[in-house]
């Protein structure tokens, strides 16, 4: 098996280029997108590379159309992806909800930029994290990955496809502008370094097949179109047959299953880097590019005699409830830097569930949070306890 790029040497790729190459390595053979910065490079690479591997690239008329196209293509059995940024992510929301409801695997990349609205088109933000969780209407689980280093972006992209296939959901790959545009040297991972998961196909003949048959588990096997199964797919609440229902008990049962199918694996989905946390008194919680600066701040704090540590979320959603709660019992305070005006801090507060200082470091001007700002907050908290 090859990683698709045919490269195993050292490359110097931006985060966006890595996403595209890793997607192909993961088996993505259909991409639909619409131009938007700072995610455009993903489309550029896909347009060039997909035909080489016999895959399909299509630039659609808008963001909504790209989301619709990847859902349609996924129903034929293909692994599919789209990439966008803030405003485009907002536009895709209705069809993202459709993919949750109809349980259609696909990967949605959002390279976060400043907002609301057009905001800061080519500048950094991490302000779509709550939209990623709650952006579409209705209840649903969310898997969102926030890699911060280059080989990690590669592996996270492959994981995003694996999770989409495994749980039959749209998986969110959340980069931020810095992660998407920064180039770093890296060795292209060899296929022996990761696993590929493909959706489970039905083991029963068409006349016994139901697209949402939970007797096979919370993630029902998924047939493809044109294989003789002739099933129905709708965004309406439906029974196991795929046909609409308004029966309150069935709706309740099915919606609970759709959340359970992901949340029961929350422990396995958790992906955290713990840095200097063993004896830490002040924990920094961070993700994406901000976490790189947070690590520098932790090192500096240690040099100055403060016991600081970093908990970095690589899987941001589902939120690591248990891990943060346990950490909260060991440390005296949390510092939560993020390039927004305080979003993930709400989750830290919720899961820490203790009367302790939990303070944010926030910027929204399109620039990274400098390590010294995080450091001075760590020092302030160490000194004043808040």
């Amino acid at each position, binding site marked *: 098996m090859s990683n698709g790029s045919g490269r195993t040497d050292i490359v110097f790729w931006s985060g966006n280029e890595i996403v595209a190459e890793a997607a192909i390595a993961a088996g993505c053979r259909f991409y639909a997108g619409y131009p938007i910065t700072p995610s455009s490079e993903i489309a550029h690479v896909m347009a060039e590379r997909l035909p080489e591997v016999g895959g399909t690239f299509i630039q659609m008329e*808008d963001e909504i159309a790209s989301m619709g*196209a990847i*859902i*349609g293509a996924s129903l034929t059995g293909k692994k599919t992806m789209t990439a966008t940024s803030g405003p485009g992510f907002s536009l895709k929301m209705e069809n993202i909800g459709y993919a949750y409801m109809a349980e259609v695997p696909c990967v949605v990349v959002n390279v976060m930029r400043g907002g609301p609205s057009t905001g800061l088109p080519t500048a950094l933000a991490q302000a779509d994290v709550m939209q990623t969780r709650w952006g579409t209407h209705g209840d649903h689980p969310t898997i969102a990955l926030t890699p911060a280093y280059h080989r990690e972006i590669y592996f996270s992209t492959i994981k995003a496809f694996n999770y989409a296939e495994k749980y039959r959901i749209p998986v969110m790959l959340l980069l931020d502008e810095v992660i998407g545009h920064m180039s770093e040297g890296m060795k292209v991972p060899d296929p022996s370094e990761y696993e590929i998961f493909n959706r489970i196909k039905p083991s029963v003949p068409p006349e016994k097949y139901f697209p949402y048959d939970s007797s096979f588990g919370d993630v029902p096997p998924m047939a493809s*179109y044109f294989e003789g199964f*002739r099933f129905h797919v*709708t965004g309406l609440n439906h029974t196991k047959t795929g046909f609409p229902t308004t029966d309150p008990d069935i709706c309740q049962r099915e919606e609970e299953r759709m959340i359970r199918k992901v949340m029961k694996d929350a422990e396995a989905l958790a992906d955290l880097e713990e840095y200097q946390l063993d004896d830490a008194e002040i924990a920094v919680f961070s993700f994406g590019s901000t976490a790189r600066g947070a690590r520098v701040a932790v090192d500096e704090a240690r040099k100055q005699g403060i016991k600081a540590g970093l908990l970095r979320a690589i899987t941001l959603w589902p939120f690591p409830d248990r891990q943060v709660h346990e950490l909260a019992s060991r440390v005296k305070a949390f510092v939560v830097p993020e390039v927004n005006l305080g979003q993930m801090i709400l989750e830290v507060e919720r899961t820490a569930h203790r009367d302790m200082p939990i303070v944010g470091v926030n910027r929204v001007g399109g620039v990274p949070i400098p390590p010294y700002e995080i450091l001075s907050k760590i020092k302030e908290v160490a000194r004043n306890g808040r």
Partner: protein
Amino acid sequence: MAVDYLHYLRADKLPHMWCPGCGIGIVVKSMIGAIDALGWDKNETAVVSGIGCTSRAPGYMDMNTLHTTHGRALTFATGVKMAAPDKHVIVIAGDGDSSAIGGNHFIHACRRNIDITMIIVNNNIYGMTGGQFSPTTPYGAKAATTPHGNIDPAFDLGQLAIGAGATYVARGSVDNGRMLQKYLKDGMAHHGFSVIEALSNCHTQFGRRNKMSDPVVMVEWIANKVVTKAKAEKMPPEELEGKIITGELHRNDERPEYTDEYSQLIQRVQKKAGVHQ
């Protein structure tokens, strides 16, 4: 030979949810007749829709069926067709679904000339949501949101499709199912983006507000409004005033089809890259 309609329908899903006398049933019947005449395999055919009364049609059809979001049927269908270019893809949509919320997707599917058959059931109203006016509601007509009469000019969907680049465009009406079936068959057989507009009756939401609550009266109103292209060519302009022309309105067999173009692109790229697959 008579068409075995039940072969193409999910009989256990009947009776359907449409009002008695609704024209959508005639369109579905004509559609099945056309599929049968072409000998299309149910397993090889996908039927895609958006939201609205018309968009419930795929649920009754025993094929690969996809009931999507409002206005977006063509986007999902484009994904299906691009991923499986050798399969048949039909979209069935109402006038509001296809030309208001889905208008952008409509013109771009026409422009690409992708081999999808688009059936528009034009009943001049939003039926399911309670009778609001649509982009094809006639000037002056009453609707739930035009209680004082409609001042919006209406789209001519055929001209819109032709202007945007569709390579087969025809218009039929539910008062003449046979003629409609012929256009549906020709459109499905056509290799490129085909648009078949079916003028239909929503007596419940449009008719009721415009003195035609009886489906027979409303279908007669349609029958009196339409003139075949052949007849129209011989009629003086003053007699054509207020008439709607039915027939094959446009056909172009020369323009390249989109999935063909893409598969040629793949071949070119792979040849250049020295990929042998």
